[in-house]
């Protein structure tokens, strides 16, 4: 997100994620997980979201979205020694395979405040009483991220 894709694409992706994992669509996601193991250690997030069609509507933004997902391998998470990428995969897998799966809300927070991907629980939607799992992804506004491939000065 942030510098990798346009702001409008970030909004587009968040809407897609929050719709596909809301309470209404949860049975479909559970069925897909049961049949195809969409979320597992065998698949990257890039692959999983591509299979689910959770990609930018603007086709020119797709590589940026996939690049961002790949970058999550380098992100920390709220669990020690677990990358942001793996944390996201595992929390969705565990939830969809549990006896009482919950809707998942995806949000973003400032990487300046917390560099890691965070998972919490709560009721993030004021219009809904459903308890959600909340995945919050660190993001940096445009212009504040070093260019792709740039090396850090030693």
């Amino acid at each position, binding site marked *: 997100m942030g510098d990798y894709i346009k702001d409008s694409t970030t909004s587009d992706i968040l809407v897609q994620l929050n719709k596909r994992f809301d309470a209404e669509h949860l049975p479909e996601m559970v069925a*897909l997980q049961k049949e195809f193991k969409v979320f597992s250690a065998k698949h990257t997030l890039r692959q999983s979201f591509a299979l689910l069609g959770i990609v930018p509507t603007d086709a020119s933004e797709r590589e940026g979205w996939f690049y961002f997902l790949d970058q999550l391998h380098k992100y920390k998470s709220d669990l020690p020694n677990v990358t942001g990428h793996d944390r996201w995969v595992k929390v969705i897998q565990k939830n969809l395979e549990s006896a009482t799966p919950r809707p998942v809300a995806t949000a973003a927070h400032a990487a300046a405040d917390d560099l890691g991907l965070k998972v919490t629980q709560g009721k993030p939607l004021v219009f809904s009483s459903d308890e959600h799992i909340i995945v919050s992804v660190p993001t940096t506004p445009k212009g504040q991220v070093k260019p792709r491939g740039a090396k850090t000065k030693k």
Partner: protein
Amino acid sequence: MTVSPRTDRAGAKPGDRTLRGVFSDVEAYYSARVAKHGATPLGVDWSCWATQNLRFVQLLKLCDFSGPFALNDIGCGYGALAAYLAMRHATTAIDYLGVDLSQAMVRRARRRFSGSGRRFVVATSSPRVADYSVASGVMNVSLGHPREVWEDFVATILREMRRASRRGFSVNFINADIDTAHDLADGLYRTTAQRWIDFCEGELGCSVETIDGYGMREFTLLIRCNEPAAI
């Protein structure tokens, strides 16, 4: 039982302009979709690969994969089922025939998936009798046609699938809570399982199993032929 011999357009009576108009509209719609979205799930009006393949899982519950068989794929689009079979059922010898109204779809399917045991033809119905026939999503997008016209189209497709299947055929529909005259305002045809179970059992002389509860607002009918089709 006997099934009517094949007529000129998927069971349409000669001179039946309304039904021919439906086939023509369907052909134009899907040709436009694949021109816009390419050989992708969106090109055949499915949201993604995963849901498209979950539908194949249900439809193929009809088939006995313990031995070789012949399969007609009605409304095959760009050949996604052929790819799915190669991925999930590679050890079973399947004589696959994809049938679609759209030349543009079939051209893409041939380019991507033609090979030994896999053929594609442009037609309104299968030119051969196979062990099984399947149709995924063929009945859903009614393109603004009145309900009675669309149901005539559905019945025509089902009769033709019966004619072209020795052992059985399977189809899916969007679920309606009650079988009322839905206004089709969003261009989608919704129905109840019972509406078409009655048709398949009563008119086609088949036995029907309903598959639902797979996380989608739809159901799949597995329709088994009690007697071989009369060719």
